[in-house]
């Protein structure tokens, strides 16, 4: 099965700023892929490169089998794109906008359009410029889902929306999920966790991980080791142990490579005198925070090392 989106060593620079750095990403067909990351991580840039709004500086991206640089015209009849900061034809009414877009898509499904209008309770006669942000986003969703696109790309679609609108939009998306691939960027980890099948974590333009949600959930565990007596943080901890810290007799860390069989054995060998070891599943938010903090710690310690080397030199 061909991936819906794939990138090879994709980079994008703006002057001296590296927004995306050697990205290798694969979004399988039929997936609901959530790209998460802090502000400025490069999520929007990646989406704009995928949509051929920006040209890549290096590497390449393929969207539905088409080189992103050649993505234009008819290719967009199979792609639905909604962005939080996308300009809409504000002077049109919702009905006029749907009428206008309808003519561009041979496969436009009027029944689905009517269904979405009802589902989102869209006021057809009101101009877009007079709609609330949530309503405007619903209108954008309706105009991007009505032609049953093979790929839906959403850039921060839920940002700044109230929970009711978010739920309505997510519901609308989930209904489309069986027939499409959804690629979205978001900060809203709680919502993403409820419906995403895949997740990728972006940090300063680099993809730190990208995998199925279930695999990720199985891979990360919050580990608590209760020792017999207080002891300092042991040295030479594995790289997969994130954010290790001790307090009295308790050692806590996030295991980023947890295996139900080998991990308990490994811990038992490392801490033979441990009174108790617990492995707690983590929420996506907790995983996200652990990975983000760990990456920043590593980056700052790397900078410190570099500074020490420079001083020594």
């Amino acid at each position, binding site marked *: 099965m061909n991936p819906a989106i794939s990138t090879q060593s994709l980079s994008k620079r703006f002057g001296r700023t590296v927004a995306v750095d050697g990205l290798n990403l694969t979004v399988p067909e039929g997936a609901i892929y959530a790209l998460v990351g802090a502000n400025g991580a490069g999520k929007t840039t990646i989406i*704009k490169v995928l*949509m051929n*709004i*920006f040209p890549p500086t290096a590497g390449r991206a393929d969207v539905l089998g088409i080189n992103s640089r050649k993505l*234009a*015209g*008819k*290719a*967009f*009849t199979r*792609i639905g*794109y909604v*962005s939080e*900061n*996308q*300009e*809409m*034809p504000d*002077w049109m009414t919702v009905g006029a906008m749907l009428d*206008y*877009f309808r*003519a*561009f*898509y041979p496969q436009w499904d009027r029944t689905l359009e009517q269904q979405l209008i009802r589902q989102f309770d869209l006021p057809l006669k009101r101009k877009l410029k007079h709609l609330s942000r949530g309503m405007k986003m619903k209108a954008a969703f309706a105009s991007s889902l009505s032609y049953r696109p093979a790929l839906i790309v959403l850039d921060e679609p839920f940002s700044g929306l109230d929970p009711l609108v978010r739920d309505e939009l997510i519901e609308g998306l989930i209904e489309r999920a069986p027939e499409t691939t959804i690629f979205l960027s978001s900060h809203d980890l709680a919502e993403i966790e409820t419906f995403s099948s895949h997740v990728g974590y972006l940090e300063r333009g680099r993809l730190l991980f990208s995998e199925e949600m279930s695999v990720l959930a199985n891979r990360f565990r919050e580990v608590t080791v209760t020792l017999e007596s207080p002891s300092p943080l042991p040295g030479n901890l594995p790289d997969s142990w994130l954010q290790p810290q001790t307090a009295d007799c308790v050692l806590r860390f996030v295991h980023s490579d947890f295996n139900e069989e080998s991990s308990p054995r490994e811990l038992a060998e490392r801490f033979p005198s441990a009174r108790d070891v617990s492995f707690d599943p983590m929420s996506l938010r907790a995983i996200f925070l652990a990975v983000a903090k760990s990456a920043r710690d590593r980056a700052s310690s790397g900078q410190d090392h570099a500074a020490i080397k420079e001083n020594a030199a």
Partner: protein
Amino acid sequence: MKQILHIFAKDARRFWPEILLSLAITVAFVRLYANQWLPLDTSGRSQAGVGMVQSLSQRFAVALVFLVPLSWWLLISRVIHAERLIGTTQFWLTRPYEWKKLLAAKLIFLLAFLYLPIFIAQCLILVAAGFHPFLYLPGLLYNLLLITGYLVLPLVALASVTSNFARMTLTLLGIFLCIACIFAVALFVGSPGASTPNQGHVPLILALCLCLSVIAVQYATRKVWHARLLLFAFPVLFFCIGAVIPDRVSIERAYPQPANGAGAQPQLEYRPDPHILYGAYSLPAGNRMGIAVPIQATGIAEGDLLILDDVRVAIEAPGGFRWDSAWQSLYGNLHLPVDKKVTANFTMPGAVYKKLKNLPLRVHLTFASTQARAVKATTVPFSGREVTGPDFGICSTALLPLGSVAANIEFSCRSALREAPLTHVSVAWSDPHCAQPQPEPWQGVQNIGWRGAIESDPAQFGISPVVVERFSLTNTGGYLQLQRVPSSCPLPAVTFTQYKLVGRTQTGLSINDYHLPAHQ
């Protein structure tokens, strides 16, 4: 095609106020521009309401000539910026728009709401001016091509590399400011440039190619800096090349030296008139002095004409000092039919003038000259109504008495789409059949005027398809010695003699022992 029409319909629905404004201005332009060639009111009522209304309406019509392109500016900006090509957040970037169809939709919009109205407007103005539009169809189409190359496409190109009307306006103002500065500097620096003959279609082709390239690059790739570079760098480059290449190159090419064995050429002679004081005069720009040299041509065949376009001066002074000028325009050109005397003016730096003013000089003037030949002469009686000169256009005329003895015939002439071909207009005032006795000396005064251009395209660039020119021929004789026109005499006849280009060459005139005139 469906997508093209769909985008077009969307734009037409959205921009109806701008379309309406543009159409209203065009309608007003058609309605009022016909006043431009109304005959002058010579009845003395011009101070009263009717004359004032006529004058105001004529001024407003002139304003409309500028308002029409201004309305296009707004229309072009709005329609191009509706799917602006700069930015990353426009809705249409991720919709199935095809750039060729988008561009085609915009062009159809301009065809429908800019070209069609102005074409109809121009036809109506031609009809109002007494010209049949179908006879001038090639000229009308050529005029639209000129409007496209020099106005519409530059505006479309500018709109395609800017993000909104305000930025486009600022850019345009910046361009105008740069051009004004360049002209101001050129004027201040002083030395008048040469007037070279029509460059043919080269500027139009360059403008069309440049604008189309910018538009195509921007629509196809949205690489805005490439398009901006193309739009601004190439004109600057052409300007720099034009500034670096001296006038000499283009003049030498346009006016070749007479070939050996060529037939008899007209000769120029230095013929000062003892009754006239030829003085040197100061020019405000660049501390230069203007010098007038009286000349007369001989050897011009009957019916031929020598036109002096530019002059180059070489002055040798005792002691080996030599000053050479660049080619300078003889503003307005000097027309020399048989035995006509004219004054050729050139300028020189004030410092050189001071150094040479009291010395006996050897002066060599080289003229870039054009030879023309009369091809058609038509005499029409002056009846106080409109007269039509063949190929010249239609003139409304009025006899305007100047005191008791003098009179002017005021001409308000209009030609279709371009300046008339070079025409010699003459009026013979004497009338042998006049009932009243004519006082001596009454030899009849023939007053003449040169109008039109020796060469021209099927149309000249302009919003209006009618070129209006006013001039007057008086019955005053040479040096303002008035001749009488008995009021009961029939009105004189007007003769239009049309000239055609024969060739261009350089003609020399050497003057020995010349003294620069004293400063006036």
